[in-house]
């Protein structure tokens, strides 16, 4: 499927129409959704109506900007007025959104076309998309594997050409993990930049809304539209020569699949060859990230779900229900300790970035896991899938730094591997400038190596 950038050029050259491309996305949804289960709600009629209006507006000289007429999908955690927000849970049965989330208002104003609402791990509380009231979403690269999560249906929809881009949410990696597993770009903006109103929360102190797309430029266009700046153009790439990158090897590179490690090191070498200066840095308290994250997210989620857990526990999928119940036992004093750890980690990542334009590290330690696997073997030991998938992304939900996943090649089985770039807090545009500079070099690894 073409990128948003390519679509825009061809749309304005009258080589295609929004209706034609929307019809193609809907055709692919009809053909592939039974296999991939990426969508919970397909909005065909509304999408075609929006696409017709986009074509008519453009013909009349009203150009809303880069997202004009672009078919996108939306994680079924965000409110779109008149459409159910299921959160992939039976707990939400009967819900229909009365208003658009502010981000959806912005996308409408930008002229985007909504093709449907995508599948997710129930209430965004998981990394594989297996626990969903609508069944597991599947990875377009190998349907026996997870597309990652929690925004798994979103990532699958873009990787399978069912939409040109998608909107996800990220509380511990739920944009970057599925982007990495499906071989696309995923951006978690800096904490608090993009509104989380009108989004079913997992943790209001860790939740982010952001785009998944086929390129950094596309992610940039959608990110700006989410914030209400529909006409924004992508920033200029930062010059590669002298770009200052840092690799936090300790902890972040300790536990990697061999092929993921190889693709990551190859990407680093290409960046060096292109002129980047790459140092090593250390984030001293990185090993404390998992307990800090766990105590915050579990308690936040438990507070939101406490009433429903008492009144309709049978409506949750079993695994999600148990994790939510666990959160109800977190003590207040331990929550406060986790907040102290969060502040320490934030300062350490700030310090690691003080002399660098971005951190560079893998996004996902393993390729997309097989659906149903609870452990994966790394370095001769069986490691829990959930812990592994969160390991490299959750730190930056805790600290709030903007972070993005970008494809960097494939395994011998053709499964995507991904690099993660992390920028300074409140500097998402600067991170995007780094990513635009790096993209061509990192993507140089888009090949299958034995």
């Amino acid at each position, binding site marked *: 499927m073409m990128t948003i950038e390519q679509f825009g050029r061809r749309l304005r050259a009258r080589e295609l129409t929004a209706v034609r491309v929307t019809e193609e996305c809907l055709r692919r949804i009809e053909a592939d959704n039974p296999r991939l289960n990426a969508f919970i709600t397909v909005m065909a009629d509304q999408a075609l109506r929006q696409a017709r209006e986009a074509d008519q507006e453009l013909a009349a000289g009203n150009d809303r900007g880069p997202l004009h007429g672009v078919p996108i999908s939306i994680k079924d955690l965000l409110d779109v007025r008149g459409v159910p927000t299921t959160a992939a849970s039976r707990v939400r049965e009967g819900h229909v959104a009365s208003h658009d989330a502010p981000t959806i208002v912005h996308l409408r104003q930008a002229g985007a076309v909504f093709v449907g609402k995508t599948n997710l791990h129930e209430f965004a509380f998981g990394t594989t998309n297996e626990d969903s009231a609508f069944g597991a979403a599947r990875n377009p690269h190998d349907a026996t594997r997870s597309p990652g999560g929690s925004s798994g249906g979103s990532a699958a929809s873009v990787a399978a050409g069912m939409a040109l881009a998608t909107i996800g949410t990220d509380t511990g990696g739920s944009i970057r993990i599925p982007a990495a597993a499906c071989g696309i770009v995923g951006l978690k903006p800096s904490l608090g930049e993009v509104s989380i109103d009108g989004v079913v929360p997992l943790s209001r102190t860790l939740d982010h809304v952001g785009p998944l797309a086929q390129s950094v430029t596309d992610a940039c266009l959608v990110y700006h539209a989410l914030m209400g700046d529909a006409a924004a153009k992508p920033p200029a790439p930062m010059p590669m020569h002298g770009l200052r990158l840092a690799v936090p090897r300790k902890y972040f590179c300790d536990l990697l699949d061999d092929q993921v490690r190889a693709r990551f090191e190859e990407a680093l070498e290409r960046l060096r060859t292109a002129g980047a200066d790459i140092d090593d840095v250390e984030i001293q*308290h990185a090993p*404390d990230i*998992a*307990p*800090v994250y*766990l*105590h915050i997210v*579990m308690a936040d989620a438990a507070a939101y779900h406490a009433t429903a857990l008492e009144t309709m526990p049978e409506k949750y999928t079993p695994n999600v229900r*148990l*994790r939510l*119940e*666990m959160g109800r*036992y*977190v*003590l207040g*004093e*331990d929550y406060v*300790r*986790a907040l*102290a*750890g969060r*502040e*320490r980690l934030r300062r350490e990542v700030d310090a690691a970035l003080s002399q660098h334009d971005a951190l560079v590290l893998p996004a996902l330690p393993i390729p997309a896991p097989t659906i149903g696997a609870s452990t994966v073997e790394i370095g001769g030991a069986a490691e829990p899938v959930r812990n592994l998938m969160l390991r490299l992304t959750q730190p930056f939900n805790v600290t709030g730094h903007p972070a993005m996943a970008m494809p960097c090649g494939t395994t011998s089985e053709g499964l995507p591997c991904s690099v993660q770039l992390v920028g300074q807090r409140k500097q998402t545009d600067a991170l995007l400038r780094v990513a635009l500079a790096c993209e061509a070099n990192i993507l140089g690894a888009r090949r299958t190596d034995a």
Partner: protein
Amino acid sequence: MTIESWLQAAIADAERRGLPELKPILEALARSTRALRAADFNDDAAGPNT
């Protein structure tokens, strides 16, 4: 509350609520809490920092 006494109380409460399958998950949470409490960023009323 010590982690040991908390875990004992939590498991007993889960069983009373008909959720015995929570036990291994609570034990995992206890391990995580132990790591959190052992971290050197925690304040201590008897310690050097105010």
